C-alpha cells in the first residue's frame, strides 16, 4: 500500500484520503497514519504547489547551472554540495555522473540576480573549477504535469 500511496501523492499532493482509503478498502485513518509514518521516516520530504510563474510575473528565470568541482579529500563532494545548498537561491542541487559534477537549479530570481549569484557567489567558491549556466526558455511539462494544458473535449456530448 505504501508505494501506491506514494504514487498517488506524487501525482496529486492534495488527493482526498477518503478516495485513497476506498481504493485500498481500508479506513481513512489507516491511510492517514501511513502517510504520517512516512513523513516521520523522511520518505515524504515535503508538499509543494506546482506553479506556472510565467503567468504571474515575467522577469523571473530558471537557470540550470552545470558545476565542475575538485572533490575534497575524505569529504568527497558532500561538503561542497553543502556549501552550495545553503544559499536560499538554490532550489535543487544534485551530483551528476558525466562531464560535470553538480547540477544546480536557481529559481525565482531575475536574470541579473541570477548572473550576480553565479559570478559573485558560485563561480568564485573554493574548489569550483567552472560553471556553465543554461536559462530555461519555456517549460512544457514539470512533475509529470503539462504547464499549459491543452483544453479540449472533442468527444461527442452523447454516444451509445
Amino acid at each position, binding site marked *: 500500500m505504501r508505494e501506491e500511496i506514494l504514487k498517488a501523492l506524487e501525482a496529486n499532493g492534495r488527493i482526498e484520503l477518503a478516495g485513497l482509503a476506498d*481504493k485500498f478498502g481500508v479506513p481513512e485513518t489507516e491511510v492517514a497514519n501511513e502517510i504520517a509514518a512516512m513523513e516521520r521516516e523522511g520518505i515524504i520530504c515535503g508538499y509543494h504547489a506546482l506553479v506556472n510563474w510565467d503567468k504571474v510575473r515575467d522577469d523571473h528565470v530558471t537557470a540550470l547551472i552545470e558545476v565542475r568541482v575538485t572533490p575534497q579529500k575524505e569529504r568527497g563532494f558532500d561538503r561542497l554540495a553543502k556549501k552550495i545548498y545553503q544559499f536560499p537561491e538554490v532550489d535543487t542541487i544534485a551530483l551528476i555522473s558525466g562531464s560535470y559534477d553538480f547540477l544546480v537549479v536557481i529559481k525565482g530570481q531575475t536574470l541579473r540576480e541570477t548572473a550576480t549569484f553565479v559570478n559573485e557567489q558560485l563561480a568564485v567558491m573554493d574548489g569550483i573549477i567552472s560553471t556553465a549556466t543554461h536559462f530555461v526558455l519555456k517549460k512544457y511539462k514539470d512533475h509529470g504535469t503539462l504547464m499549459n494544458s491543452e483544453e479540449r473535449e472533442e468527444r461527442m456530448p*452523447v454516444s*451509445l
Partner: protein
Amino acid sequence: MRDPLSSKIKDIQPSGIRKFFDIVTEMKDAISLGVGEPDFDTPWRIRQEGIRSLEKGRTFYTSNAGLKELKIEISKYLSERCDLDYDYQSEILITVGGSEAIDIAFRAMLDEGDEVIIPQPSYVSYVPCCELAGGKPVVIDLKNENEFKLTPQELEEAITDRTKILLLSFPNNPTGAIMTKEELEPLVEIIKKHDIYVISDEIYSELSYKGRHYSIAAFPGMKERTLVINGFSKGFAMTGWRLGYVCGPVRIIEQMFKIHQYAIMCAPTNSQYAAMVGLRKCIPEVDKMRASYDERRRFLMKEFKKIGLPCFEPFGAFYVFPCIKEFGMSSEDFATRLLQEEKVAVVPGTAFGACGEGFLRISYAYSIEDLRVAIGRLASFIDKLRKEEDA
C-alpha cells in the same frame, strides 16, 4: 416514382431518443455524462506507431483477414488475458470495430426467421443487425434485482425450437453488469442442451473491476459454439481507429470472411499497425486506465449512497445504472428535465431497450473533477424533486 427502399430497412426503428440527443448537442454549456467512449487519449506509443506507419508509406490494403503479426499478437493476448486459445491463421478475423463483427456474425449465421435471444438493456445495434440479417430478436428483460445478469431460468424460458443464437454482452453497456465464471456456468449447460450458438460481445473485457474477465468460450465444449467479439476501442481507448476482431470456429469464421472480403476488404491498415504496438507495449497503460475508472466508479457509488439514489454496484465497463423509479416519471422525462434545469446530460435507460425504463445510464469516462460537479448538480435536482413530491 418507385419506392427506392427495402421494406426491411423501413421496418427498422430509428433510435427513439433522437430528440433528446438533439437537445444535448445544441446545449453548449451542459456537462455531459453521456458518452460511451473513454476520456483518455489513445496511449502515445500507439499514436506514434500510427504516425510512423503512415510515414513508412503503409497506405495499402492488408490481407483481408488482417495483418498476420497483429493476429499473432491477438492470439497471444487472448491466451494470456482470457485463457482463450485461437489459431491466428484460421480462427481470427480483424474487423472494422466490434460493430462490423456483430453485423457479419448475424449475416453469416442467420436464416430468415431464426431466433436470436438478446438480453436487454444492451447495446443498440444487436436488434437492428439481427433483423437486417433476417433473424428474429427475442428480447429478455433483465432484472435490477439480479443486477442485470442473465439467469438460467430466464434463458430457459426464452428458448424455442427456432432459437439459434444467444447474444451475451458482459461487461455490459449500459448497466455495467458483469458475469463471473460461476454465474456463466449454469448457462453453459442450457446452451449445450439446446444446441445453441453464442455471440459474446466482450468489447469491455479489459474493464472488469472484480477479478479478471472470464469468457464463456473458455468453458470446455464452448469454443466450437461461440463467437468472441472484442476490439481496441474501450480497453485501449481507440474508438476512432475503428479496429476490432472476432474469434471463433473455422466453419463460421470462413463464412464471415466472405462477407468481410466483399463488403469491407480489410480493416484500416494504419490502425492495425498501431494496435500491434498497443498489444506489445501498452498493457501497463491499459491497467492504469482501468485503475482510474475503478476509482471513479467507487466515487460514484459513494455519492449515490449519500444522495440515496438506489443503484446496484456494477463491476464492469464504465457505466452505472441507477434507478429513478421513485420519482414517478419516465427516464426520458427525467433526463430532459435534468438537462434543462441542471445542465447535466445522462442517457435515459430506454435507449437500450424498453426494460431500461426507470433507469439512467451514467458514464464515468470523465475526470473525478467533472464527476464531482455533475453529481453535485444531480443531487440538487433530486433534492428538488423530493421537495416537489412532499409539497
